[in-house]
């Protein structure tokens, strides 16, 4: 009896050491980029050399996968820049051009469908009233009589509740105010989605589907590069565009010119003019999220 017990312990230890040895062999034999991905450090702590290597690998991987030349930028924030956005509620007609321009630019999954921008149709008599807003309105023509429209995406809060709750430090605010996600570090717990009062974060419940020919190959590591299943994504003010000096694609597409974007630290920018001369409001101001996204009445 005693002997048997000793034997089983010995057996156990033997098996354990074999197991460890075996998996070590397996690990050392495995040099696939996916495995490198798994061991990759948080983007914020990576050295310049690490980033260059990761970018190179990603560009190679995506170029092969999607059959076109893919660029992945890791362009850092521009000095003395704090991005601000203003949307003219008196001009938005709710045409949803911005929603789909955003999907195209930022490679959101077509199926299951992910939209970073949601347009709320509101009743003029009720004012801004989320409970009675409608996101599925679909008349022949917009705007509809008696209604106004409030497009909502990430508000790039200066005091972002989503960042606070992330247990993996996979999401943070960049120096230019953009809240970004490191898709390699996101563990998919979706705490940030629960914390965000604007419904601005979206989860990849399955492998995102974007047709190869529609894939935008000009990407940023912290923005529109292809996402894996099981991570959270969000609006980044088109980080791949704005860090190159361009307007976000929603600003470019808006047929009414309701969308205004710029550097709030530049006194000559249109965003500063709006903040200084127009009546602006932020959504859910009482939550003290301090959005860098403002709404205003241009008329």
């Amino acid at each position: 009896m005693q002997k048997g017990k000793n034997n089983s312990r010995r057996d156990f230890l033997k098996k354990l050491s074999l197991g460890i040895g075996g998996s070590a062999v397996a690990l050392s034999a495995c040099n696939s980029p996916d495995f490198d991905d798994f061991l990759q450090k948080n983007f914020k702590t990576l050295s310049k050399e690490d980033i260059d290597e990761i970018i190179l690998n990603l560009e190679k991987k995506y170029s092969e996968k999607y059959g076109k030349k893919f660029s992945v930028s890791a362009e850092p924030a521009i000095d003395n820049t704090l991005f601000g956005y203003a949307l003219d509620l008196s001009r938005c007609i709710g045409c949803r051009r911005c929603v789909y321009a955003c999907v195209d630019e930022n490679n959101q999954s077509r199926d299951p469908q992910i939209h970073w921008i949601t347009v709320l149709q509101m009743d003029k008599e009720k004012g801004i009233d989320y409970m009675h807003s409608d996101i599925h309105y679909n008349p022949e023509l917009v705007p509809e009589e008696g209604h106004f429209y409030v497009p909502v995406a990430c508000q790039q809060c200066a005091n972002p509740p989503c960042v606070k709750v992330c247990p993996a430090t996979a999401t943070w605010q960049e120096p230019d105010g953009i809240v970004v996600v490191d898709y390699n570090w996101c563990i998919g717990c979706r705490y940030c989605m629960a914390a965000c009062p604007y419904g601005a974060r979206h989860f990849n419940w399955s492998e995102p589907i974007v047709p190869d020919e529609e894939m935008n190959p000009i990407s940023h590591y912290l923005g529109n590069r292809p996402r894996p299943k099981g991570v959270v994504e969000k609006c980044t003010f088109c980080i791949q565009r704005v860090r190159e000096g361009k307007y976000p694609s929603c600003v470019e597409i808006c047929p009414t010119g309701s969308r205004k974007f710029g550097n709030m630290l530049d006194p000559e920018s249109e965003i500063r003019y709006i903040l200084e001369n127009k009546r602006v409001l932020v959504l859910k101001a009482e939550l003290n999220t301090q959005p860098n996204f403002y709404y205003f009445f241009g008329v």
Partner: protein
Amino acid sequence: MFIMKDFNSTAQKIIFFNCLIILNLFIGCNNNTSIENDLQNPVISHLEDKQNVEIAVSRPPFSDEYIFPCSECHADMEVNIEPRILEMHEEIVESYNHDSENRWCLACHDANTRDSLRLASGKLLDFKKSYKLCGQCHGDKLRDWKVGVHGKRSGDWNGKKQYLLCVHCHDPHSPHFKKLKPDPPPVKEEDIDSIE
């Protein structure tokens, strides 16, 4: 003599219609030129001196129904400044809705120099600078437009920008912004298939 005159007028008519067709083609082609091409010909000078920002405006849009220069037809016509409902320019007459009680063609178009607009002061104005004419009444909009708050700006947030003129978005004869067909609404929750 009589026959000769008749022949002349027929010939004139033929030449005139040929001109119309050529002009139409010309205008049609120009409509297709991209905004980028127009960026090379900035037309707003007074805004350019502000910092290093270069602001360009593409040419005003003319639909197929419009014929420019207007003098092609109007040069030979007698000027009648009496406000009335025209038999020509049917489309404009029908849609005209811009304080139509008090205004008509010659509130903005110059009676004698048809290829120009006319400010309230009597000063002639090139079509490319029509925003100044609009700004006579809509001064607050002009002020906002100049700083990039009213109207659409595209290009670089910290560099070259492309402006659109008032008339790119607002038909000057019926300026209310035209309604659009909305893009499709997001999928409803109950219509989403369960994920395998």
